[in-house]
């Protein structure tokens, strides 16, 4: 009997320390979910995709120019377009739809580290099929990173691969293939939104497992956890492998770009949470408002406030990092780990507290690693 009393007391304590919404408070169903979806689609996702597709178009042009005339100026220009495109990608990568999943959009655009041996074999032998799942690490922005910065130790030697080395035309063709593919995949996604999917998305405004809100929130948290927290910081810092893996950073070959990409992605995810319109100071309806409506409190503080605070903490820690994460990992990995820890705290707030408040279930399981 004593055991059960103890159990009852500890369970009660557990419940009391959890997130609570105002007991006589609002029903999630009373919130205008459709309005959130409209804000997401019309003021964030489609504008960000449109911007990204313009950048991928410019990237394709720069790639073609470079292939026609692989000189230093064209290389710089191509690198600039690559950077602009890579930054813009951070604003669209978190959004999954049936179309992005069908064409494996994120994985075709941004898988790193690059399989450089296979890339070289593709170029030398010419028999590659970038549509294959097995070739996701031989294309996209990371492989362009390798081809524009990683082939050799200085610009002159890099350029020689495209000018005078054997297979120089194959190298040029591969660059063109990559930028062409990035642009065409992006067009597919944007066209899908613009030719019917936007309405479908916005009208699917219920709150079941297959509703737009449920799926988009799950995808957002998945992106935050796997791509932002683990992919950009945790994996290179060795959190999951025991030893740091500097070669697993985003932007490994260009070296100085990792931090910029990370900060851009952090901003993009925070903006989405707050409903901030793409490339604007205006804020519309989003998860922050939904949580405020539900009066979601955790340990006496507004959950929305806690989440935004954590974004700020993460940003503050990241500011201390070297712009080259590969270097940071080797110079002082504990700063990377501190950044990871701050990001991790928001995983709890988003994946546990926020989902509980919104009555949304996690729809993905951490793989068994089998």
């Amino acid at each position: 009997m004593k055991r059960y009393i103890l159990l009852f007391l500890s369970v009660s304590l557990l419940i009391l320390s959890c997130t609570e919404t105002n007991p006589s408070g609002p029903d999630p169903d009373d919130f205008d979910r459709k309005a959130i979806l409209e804000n997401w689609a019309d003021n964030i996702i489609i504008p960000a995709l449109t911007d990204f597709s313009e950048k991928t178009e410019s990237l394709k042009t720069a790639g073609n120019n470079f292939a026609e005339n692989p000189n230093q100026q064209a290389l710089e220009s191509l690198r600039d377009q690559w950077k602009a495109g890579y930054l813009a990608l951070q604003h669209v990568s978190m959004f999954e739809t049936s179309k992005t999943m069908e064409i494996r959009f994120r994985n075709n655009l941004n898988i790193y580290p690059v399989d450089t041996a296979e890339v070289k074999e593709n170029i030398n032998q010419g028999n590659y099929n970038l549509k294959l799942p097995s070739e996701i690490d031989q294309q996209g922005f990371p492989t362009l990173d390798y081809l524009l910065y990683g082939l050799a130790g200085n610009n002159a030697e890099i350029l020689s691969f495209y000018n005078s080395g054997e297979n120089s035309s194959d190298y040029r063709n591969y660059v063109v293939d990559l930028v062409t593919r990035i642009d065409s995949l992006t067009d597919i996604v944007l066209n899908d939104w613009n030719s019917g999917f936007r309405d479908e998305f916005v009208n699917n405004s219920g709150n079941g497992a297959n509703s737009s809100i449920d799926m988009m929130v799950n995808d957002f948290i998945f992106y935050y956890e796997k791509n932002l927290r683990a992919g950009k910081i945790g994996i290179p810092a060795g959190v999951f492998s025991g030893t740091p893996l500097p070669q697993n950073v985003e932007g490994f070959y260009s070296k100085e770009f990792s931090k910029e990409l990370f900060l851009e992605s952090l901003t993009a995810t925070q903006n989405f949470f707050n409903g901030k319109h793409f490339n604007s100071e205006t804020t519309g309806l989003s998860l922050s408002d939904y949580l405020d409506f539900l009066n979601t409190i955790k340990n006496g503080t507004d959950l929305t406030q806690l989440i935004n605070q954590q974004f700020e903490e993460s940003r503050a820690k990241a500011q201390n990092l070297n712009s080259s994460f590969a270097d940071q990992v080797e110079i002082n990995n504990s700063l990377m780990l501190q950044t990871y820890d701050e990001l991790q705290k928001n995983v709890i707030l988003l994946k546990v507290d926020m989902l509980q408040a919104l009555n949304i279930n996690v729809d993905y399981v951490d793989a068994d690693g089998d």
Partner: protein
Amino acid sequence: MNLSKSLLIIAAFIFTISCDTNNTNDEIATPETYEFTRNGESTVSFSGQTTRIKMSGELTSAMTDFDNTTKELLLEMFRNQTENGADANPFSEAELNAATKNIKSKVAASTDFFSTNTAVSSEIKTQFETWLTAQVDEVFPNENIQAQPGVAGQIADGSSTRYVSAKGFEYNQLVAKSLIGALMTDQILNNYVSTSVLDAGTNIEDNNNGITAEGKTYTNMEHKWDEAFGYLYGNSSNTANPNLTIGQDDSFLNKYLGRVEGDDDFAGIAQDIFDAFALGRAAIVEGDYELRDEQAEILRAQISAIIGVRAVYYLQSGKTVLEQANPDFGTAFHDLSEAYGFVYSLQFTRQPGTGQPYFTKAEVDGFISLLEAGNGLWDVTPQTLQDISVDIASKFNFTIEEASN
């Protein structure tokens, strides 16, 4: 938690009957480590089991080495000899090539289940060889083709790439997970902890009189029990205290005991299994064969449960993926290929107190044919996966929820 309830019942039973024995020895304590000696020297030995675990690891890895593996190589690794029966050197680890052991001879080879059933044993060995050759004949040629119903090839599983047959099965998963049943589980539960092996020949008399095997420090009976131990812990970095690294020491039974131990619903199973091995071995040293056999029954219940739990876990994982609005088929096929192997392994489990597995070969073949019907995993429905899960869970003492979360 039903497993611990059964354990409680078994323990109570043991307590009752141990009071009735004529054994005047003090109660035998469960050793904390698996260390046993005679005249100051260790008597623990299971090198053959370690060898076969390593061979199995190389075999299953080789199945996805598109550049170097051939049909002949896979069969040689399975048999550790050439087609003509001559000595082969298929492994990369030298000591495996030097070994006289092989996997094939111990697949579906337990005394209790197969000594008078060589026809079925042969069928099962052939099944493994069919999967090995199919990987090279059917899947290898389609390495760079995208899999579709009826077409073998590669398929995305998140950012991983899986290689599947025309029916969506990963043959390397079929082999790896089926070996857990046909080799490790069958040898432990139906061979090495069985009285038919432990008490064979003059083993009892020799063990009673401390008569060791020729040139060895152990009695035959001690050694047989150790060989059971070796199929679970044989590749551990700390065989005296294998729970320190449980789950990390191989890709077979050890790994999945670790997985089940990591599920809150079953936590404690790793200790229960280790204790049964250790106490059974101590009982042998003291000549208490009733106590020994009680531990064998515990091992049968608990190790069989690992197979049942993981079968349901992977069936349910695959089912969850297939029920999504946009199923990631590669992810589902990976889960369900593992499920196939654990389902296949059910025929090698052992119900305590009986001479039977939890599911007969016929029943297992029935489940398998449901998975293989039509275009196999391309066609299988969540309902079918649920039905099989229900059948399995209800035979054991756990719920589907417990196994799948």
